[in-house]
Protein backbone atom coordinates (compact mmCIF):
# COMPACT_ATOMS: atom_id res chain seq x y z
CA UNK A 1 0.00 0.00 0.00
CA UNK A 2 2.99 2.26 -0.44
CA UNK A 3 2.51 5.55 -2.21
CA UNK A 4 -1.24 5.35 -2.00
CA UNK A 5 -3.48 8.20 -1.08
CA UNK A 6 -3.16 11.93 -0.80
CA UNK A 7 -0.35 13.30 1.31
CA UNK A 8 -1.16 15.10 4.50
CA UNK A 9 -0.73 18.84 4.42
CA UNK A 10 2.26 18.62 6.75
CA UNK A 11 3.96 16.27 4.30
CA UNK A 12 3.27 18.67 1.46
CA UNK A 13 4.76 21.51 3.46
CA UNK A 14 7.82 19.39 4.01
CA UNK A 15 8.30 18.56 0.34
CA UNK A 16 8.92 19.28 -2.40
CA UNK A 17 8.80 23.05 -2.16
CA UNK A 18 10.76 23.43 1.00
CA UNK A 19 9.80 25.80 3.74
CA UNK A 20 10.09 22.77 5.94
CA UNK A 21 13.65 23.31 7.01
CA UNK A 22 12.43 25.55 9.80
CA UNK A 23 9.64 23.15 10.70
CA UNK A 24 12.16 20.35 11.05
CA UNK A 25 14.48 22.50 13.09
CA UNK A 26 17.05 22.72 10.29
CA UNK A 27 18.73 25.85 9.02
CA UNK A 28 16.54 28.32 7.17
CA UNK A 29 17.67 29.19 3.64
CA UNK A 30 17.49 32.62 2.11
CA UNK A 31 16.07 31.14 -1.08
CA UNK A 32 13.44 28.42 -0.88
CA UNK A 33 13.20 25.50 -3.26
CA UNK A 34 10.67 27.21 -5.53
CA UNK A 35 12.85 30.33 -5.74
CA UNK A 36 15.94 28.30 -6.69
CA UNK A 37 14.01 26.44 -9.41
CA UNK A 38 12.66 29.75 -10.72
CA UNK A 39 16.16 31.26 -10.83
CA UNK A 40 17.51 28.20 -12.64
CA UNK A 41 14.73 28.36 -15.24
CA UNK A 42 15.26 32.09 -15.76
CA UNK A 43 19.02 31.54 -16.16
CA UNK A 44 18.48 28.80 -18.74
CA UNK A 45 15.98 30.99 -20.60
CA UNK A 46 18.52 33.79 -20.83
CA UNK A 47 21.11 31.27 -22.02
CA UNK A 48 18.61 30.24 -24.69
CA UNK A 49 18.18 33.90 -25.68
CA UNK A 50 21.96 34.24 -26.05
CA UNK A 51 21.97 31.12 -28.24
CA UNK A 52 19.16 32.59 -30.34
CA UNK A 53 21.36 35.58 -31.14
CA UNK A 54 24.69 33.82 -31.60
CA UNK A 55 24.02 30.13 -32.30
CA UNK A 56 24.91 28.64 -35.67
CA UNK A 57 22.76 25.91 -37.20
CA UNK A 58 24.23 22.47 -36.62
CA UNK A 59 24.33 19.45 -34.36
CA UNK A 60 25.63 21.37 -31.30
CA UNK A 61 22.70 23.80 -31.42
CA UNK A 62 20.22 20.94 -31.96
CA UNK A 63 21.65 19.06 -28.96
CA UNK A 64 21.60 22.14 -26.73
CA UNK A 65 18.01 22.99 -27.70
CA UNK A 66 16.89 19.38 -27.15
CA UNK A 67 18.65 19.38 -23.77
CA UNK A 68 17.08 22.69 -22.75
CA UNK A 69 13.58 21.49 -23.65
CA UNK A 70 14.08 18.23 -21.75
CA UNK A 71 15.66 19.79 -18.66
CA UNK A 72 13.42 22.86 -18.31
CA UNK A 73 10.31 20.80 -19.00
CA UNK A 74 11.35 18.25 -16.41
CA UNK A 75 12.01 21.02 -13.86
CA UNK A 76 8.52 22.47 -14.31
CA UNK A 77 6.88 19.03 -14.22
CA UNK A 78 8.74 17.77 -11.15
CA UNK A 79 8.96 20.95 -9.09
CA UNK A 80 6.18 23.31 -10.18
CA UNK A 81 3.60 20.59 -10.85
CA UNK A 82 4.87 18.47 -7.92
CA UNK A 83 5.02 15.29 -9.95
CA UNK A 84 7.86 13.66 -8.01
CA UNK A 85 5.48 11.97 -5.59
CA UNK A 86 2.34 12.02 -7.70
CA UNK A 87 0.35 9.45 -9.64
CA UNK A 88 2.86 7.30 -11.53
CA UNK A 89 0.84 7.13 -14.74
CA UNK A 90 0.44 10.89 -14.98
CA UNK A 91 4.08 11.46 -14.05
CA UNK A 92 5.39 9.00 -16.65
CA UNK A 93 3.16 10.43 -19.38
CA UNK A 94 4.38 13.96 -18.66
CA UNK A 95 8.00 12.83 -18.56
CA UNK A 96 7.46 11.04 -21.86
CA UNK A 97 6.30 14.33 -23.42
CA UNK A 98 9.59 16.07 -22.57
CA UNK A 99 11.57 13.09 -23.88
CA UNK A 100 9.70 12.58 -27.15
CA UNK A 101 9.81 16.22 -28.24
CA UNK A 102 13.61 16.60 -27.83
CA UNK A 103 14.10 13.29 -29.67
CA UNK A 104 11.95 14.66 -32.50
CA UNK A 105 14.15 17.79 -32.55
CA UNK A 106 17.23 15.60 -33.05
CA UNK A 107 15.49 13.33 -35.55
CA UNK A 108 14.26 16.23 -37.68
CA UNK A 109 17.73 17.78 -37.63
CA UNK A 110 19.65 14.64 -38.53
CA UNK A 111 17.15 12.83 -40.69
CA UNK A 112 15.19 15.68 -42.28
CA UNK A 113 15.48 14.04 -45.74
CA UNK A 114 13.98 10.80 -44.43
CA UNK A 115 11.16 12.71 -42.76
CA UNK A 116 10.51 14.58 -46.01
CA UNK A 117 10.35 11.34 -48.00
CA UNK A 118 8.06 9.73 -45.43
CA UNK A 119 5.67 12.69 -45.52
CA UNK A 120 5.60 13.32 -49.25
CA UNK A 121 2.26 12.39 -50.78
Amino acid at each position, binding site marked *: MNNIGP*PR*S*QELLAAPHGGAECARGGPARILGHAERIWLLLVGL*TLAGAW*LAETGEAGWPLAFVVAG*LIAFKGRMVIDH*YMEMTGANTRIRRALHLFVVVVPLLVLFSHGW*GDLLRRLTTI
Partner: protein
Amino acid sequence: MNIVEIPSAATVPPAPTSGAVPPVPASGVVPPERVYKHGRVPGNTGIWVGIFCVLVEFLLLFGVYFIAKAHHPEAFLTGPDKLATVAGVAITLLLLTSGYCMVKAVEAIRRDARRATLRWVALAILLGLGYPLVKYFEIQWNVARGIDGEAGIFYTVYYYLTLNHLVHVSWGLLGLAWVAVRTGLGVYSSRDYSGLEAAAVYWHTTDVIWLVIFPFFYVLR
Protein backbone atom coordinates in the same frame (compact mmCIF):
# COMPACT_ATOMS: atom_id res chain seq x y z
CA MET B 1 -8.64 4.80 -12.95
CA ASN B 2 -8.55 2.27 -10.12
CA ILE B 3 -9.82 3.48 -6.79
CA VAL B 4 -8.93 1.73 -3.58
CA GLU B 5 -11.57 1.71 -0.89
CA ILE B 6 -9.90 1.82 2.48
CA PRO B 7 -12.34 0.84 5.22
CA SER B 8 -11.73 2.94 8.27
CA ALA B 9 -14.37 2.75 10.95
CA ALA B 10 -12.01 3.66 13.74
CA THR B 11 -12.31 6.99 15.42
CA VAL B 12 -9.26 9.07 14.62
CA PRO B 13 -8.42 12.73 15.13
CA PRO B 14 -9.20 14.83 12.07
CA ALA B 15 -6.15 14.99 9.84
CA PRO B 16 -5.67 17.72 7.27
CA THR B 17 -5.91 16.32 3.79
CA SER B 18 -5.86 17.80 0.33
CA GLY B 19 -7.49 17.22 -2.99
CA ALA B 20 -10.84 15.54 -3.42
CA VAL B 21 -10.85 13.60 -0.18
CA PRO B 22 -14.09 14.20 1.67
CA PRO B 23 -13.80 16.11 4.96
CA VAL B 24 -13.84 14.30 8.26
CA PRO B 25 -17.32 14.55 9.76
CA ALA B 26 -17.92 16.16 13.13
CA SER B 27 -18.29 12.73 14.67
CA GLY B 28 -14.61 12.11 14.02
CA VAL B 29 -15.41 8.84 12.26
CA VAL B 30 -13.50 8.75 9.02
CA PRO B 31 -15.54 7.41 6.09
CA PRO B 32 -13.93 5.03 3.58
CA GLU B 33 -11.32 7.02 1.68
CA ARG B 34 -11.38 7.19 -2.11
CA VAL B 35 -7.74 7.23 -3.07
CA TYR B 36 -6.15 6.32 -6.36
CA LYS B 37 -4.17 3.12 -6.69
CA HIS B 38 -1.24 4.75 -8.52
CA GLY B 39 -0.73 7.68 -6.17
CA ARG B 40 -1.93 11.18 -5.56
CA VAL B 41 -3.56 13.11 -8.40
CA PRO B 42 -2.73 16.83 -8.10
CA GLY B 43 -5.85 18.93 -8.58
CA ASN B 44 -8.54 16.54 -9.80
CA THR B 45 -8.89 13.83 -12.42
CA GLY B 46 -11.01 16.03 -14.72
CA ILE B 47 -8.26 18.59 -15.24
CA TRP B 48 -5.85 15.84 -16.24
CA VAL B 49 -8.19 14.69 -19.01
CA GLY B 50 -8.08 18.25 -20.31
CA ILE B 51 -4.32 18.53 -19.86
CA PHE B 52 -3.60 15.36 -21.81
CA CYS B 53 -5.97 16.46 -24.59
CA VAL B 54 -3.97 19.69 -24.82
CA LEU B 55 -0.64 17.82 -24.82
CA VAL B 56 -1.80 15.48 -27.60
CA GLU B 57 -3.09 18.46 -29.59
CA PHE B 58 0.26 20.22 -29.33
CA LEU B 59 2.17 17.04 -30.17
CA LEU B 60 0.21 16.97 -33.44
CA LEU B 61 0.97 20.66 -34.02
CA PHE B 62 4.65 19.99 -33.34
CA GLY B 63 4.38 17.27 -35.97
CA VAL B 64 3.21 19.95 -38.41
CA TYR B 65 6.28 22.03 -37.44
CA PHE B 66 8.72 19.15 -38.02
CA ILE B 67 7.16 18.13 -41.33
CA ALA B 68 7.10 21.73 -42.58
CA LYS B 69 10.75 22.09 -41.51
CA ALA B 70 11.73 18.89 -43.33
CA HIS B 71 10.10 20.14 -46.55
CA HIS B 72 11.36 23.74 -46.31
CA PRO B 73 14.67 23.66 -44.40
CA GLU B 74 15.88 26.94 -45.87
CA ALA B 75 12.80 28.82 -44.60
CA PHE B 76 13.34 27.46 -41.08
CA LEU B 77 17.06 28.26 -41.28
CA THR B 78 16.54 31.97 -41.87
CA GLY B 79 13.08 32.47 -40.35
CA PRO B 80 14.11 33.04 -36.71
CA ASP B 81 16.46 35.88 -37.70
CA LYS B 82 13.53 38.17 -38.51
CA LEU B 83 11.58 37.52 -35.30
CA ALA B 84 11.99 39.63 -32.15
CA THR B 85 13.83 37.31 -29.76
CA VAL B 86 13.20 39.73 -26.92
CA ALA B 87 9.44 39.12 -27.26
CA GLY B 88 9.89 35.36 -26.97
CA VAL B 89 12.20 35.78 -23.96
CA ALA B 90 9.75 38.20 -22.30
CA ILE B 91 6.85 35.75 -22.76
CA THR B 92 8.97 32.90 -21.34
CA LEU B 93 9.95 34.94 -18.27
CA LEU B 94 6.36 36.11 -17.72
CA LEU B 95 5.02 32.54 -17.87
CA LEU B 96 7.77 31.10 -15.66
CA THR B 97 7.29 33.83 -13.05
CA SER B 98 3.52 33.54 -13.18
CA GLY B 99 3.91 29.77 -12.69
CA TYR B 100 6.17 30.43 -9.70
CA CYS B 101 3.40 32.61 -8.21
CA MET B 102 0.96 29.70 -8.53
CA VAL B 103 3.45 27.44 -6.74
CA LYS B 104 3.50 29.98 -3.92
CA ALA B 105 -0.31 30.23 -3.96
CA VAL B 106 -0.63 26.47 -3.45
CA GLU B 107 1.98 26.61 -0.69
CA ALA B 108 0.05 29.43 0.98
CA ILE B 109 -3.32 27.68 0.94
CA ARG B 110 -1.69 24.63 2.56
CA ARG B 111 -0.93 26.94 5.50
CA ASP B 112 -4.49 28.30 5.36
CA ALA B 113 -2.98 31.70 4.54
CA ARG B 114 -5.91 32.80 2.38
CA ARG B 115 -4.93 36.45 1.96
CA ALA B 116 -1.44 35.41 0.84
CA THR B 117 -3.00 32.84 -1.52
CA LEU B 118 -5.18 35.53 -3.07
CA ARG B 119 -2.21 37.86 -3.49
CA TRP B 120 -0.15 35.14 -5.23
CA VAL B 121 -3.01 34.19 -7.57
CA ALA B 122 -3.63 37.88 -8.37
CA LEU B 123 0.07 38.35 -9.15
CA ALA B 124 0.04 35.22 -11.33
CA ILE B 125 -2.91 36.66 -13.30
CA LEU B 126 -1.22 40.06 -13.63
CA LEU B 127 1.96 38.50 -15.00
CA GLY B 128 -0.05 36.14 -17.20
CA LEU B 129 -1.85 39.12 -18.73
CA GLY B 130 1.56 40.40 -19.81
CA TYR B 131 1.68 37.55 -22.34
CA PRO B 132 -1.16 38.76 -24.63
CA LEU B 133 0.18 42.29 -24.22
CA VAL B 134 3.68 41.31 -25.37
CA LYS B 135 2.16 39.18 -28.15
CA TYR B 136 0.11 42.17 -29.35
CA PHE B 137 3.21 44.37 -29.61
CA GLU B 138 5.18 41.53 -31.20
CA ILE B 139 2.56 41.06 -33.92
CA GLN B 140 2.47 44.82 -34.53
CA TRP B 141 6.27 44.78 -34.85
CA ASN B 142 6.11 41.80 -37.20
CA VAL B 143 3.39 43.22 -39.45
CA ALA B 144 5.28 46.53 -39.71
CA ARG B 145 8.14 44.49 -41.21
CA GLY B 146 5.93 42.54 -43.58
CA ILE B 147 5.88 39.39 -41.44
CA ASP B 148 2.29 38.26 -41.57
CA GLY B 149 0.68 34.84 -41.94
CA GLU B 150 1.48 34.79 -45.66
CA ALA B 151 5.13 35.79 -45.38
CA GLY B 152 6.26 32.19 -45.83
CA ILE B 153 5.81 28.71 -44.44
CA PHE B 154 7.94 29.39 -41.34
CA TYR B 155 5.80 32.36 -40.34
CA THR B 156 2.54 30.55 -41.14
CA VAL B 157 3.52 27.75 -38.74
CA TYR B 158 4.81 30.33 -36.23
CA TYR B 159 1.48 32.20 -36.15
CA TYR B 160 -0.49 28.97 -36.13
CA LEU B 161 1.36 27.50 -33.14
CA THR B 162 1.89 30.64 -31.07
CA LEU B 163 -1.67 31.94 -31.45
CA ASN B 164 -3.00 28.47 -30.62
CA HIS B 165 -0.89 28.56 -27.47
CA LEU B 166 -2.23 32.04 -26.69
CA VAL B 167 -5.78 30.64 -26.84
CA HIS B 168 -4.87 27.98 -24.27
CA VAL B 169 -3.20 30.58 -22.07
CA SER B 170 -6.39 32.64 -22.24
CA TRP B 171 -8.36 29.68 -20.92
CA GLY B 172 -5.77 29.31 -18.18
CA LEU B 173 -6.16 32.97 -17.26
CA LEU B 174 -9.94 32.55 -17.06
CA GLY B 175 -9.36 29.56 -14.77
CA LEU B 176 -7.01 31.58 -12.58
CA ALA B 177 -9.59 34.40 -12.38
CA TRP B 178 -12.19 31.84 -11.30
CA VAL B 179 -10.00 30.44 -8.52
CA ALA B 180 -9.09 33.98 -7.44
CA VAL B 181 -12.79 34.72 -6.90
CA ARG B 182 -13.28 31.45 -5.03
CA THR B 183 -10.18 32.09 -2.93
CA GLY B 184 -11.60 35.52 -2.06
CA LEU B 185 -14.87 33.87 -1.06
CA GLY B 186 -12.99 31.55 1.27
CA VAL B 187 -13.90 28.37 -0.59
CA TYR B 188 -10.39 26.86 -0.40
CA SER B 189 -8.59 25.72 2.72
CA SER B 190 -5.73 23.41 3.64
CA ARG B 191 -8.33 20.62 3.76
CA ASP B 192 -9.68 21.15 0.25
CA TYR B 193 -7.88 23.13 -2.41
CA SER B 194 -8.27 20.77 -5.35
CA GLY B 195 -9.80 23.52 -7.55
CA LEU B 196 -6.89 25.87 -6.92
CA GLU B 197 -4.37 23.11 -7.55
CA ALA B 198 -6.16 22.03 -10.74
CA ALA B 199 -5.89 25.58 -12.13
CA ALA B 200 -2.22 25.64 -11.10
CA VAL B 201 -1.29 22.39 -12.89
CA TYR B 202 -3.11 23.53 -16.06
CA TRP B 203 -1.21 26.82 -15.88
CA HIS B 204 2.10 24.95 -15.52
CA THR B 205 1.17 22.83 -18.55
CA THR B 206 0.96 25.97 -20.68
CA ASP B 207 4.47 26.74 -19.33
CA VAL B 208 5.80 23.35 -20.45
CA ILE B 209 4.33 23.78 -23.93
CA TRP B 210 5.77 27.29 -24.30
CA LEU B 211 9.20 25.99 -23.24
CA VAL B 212 9.02 23.87 -26.43
CA ILE B 213 7.56 26.56 -28.70
CA PHE B 214 10.11 29.24 -27.72
CA PRO B 215 13.23 27.42 -29.02
CA PHE B 216 11.34 26.13 -32.08
CA PHE B 217 10.82 29.63 -33.46
CA TYR B 218 13.42 31.84 -31.80
CA VAL B 219 16.49 29.61 -31.26
CA LEU B 220 16.52 26.47 -33.44
CA ARG B 221 17.74 26.69 -37.02
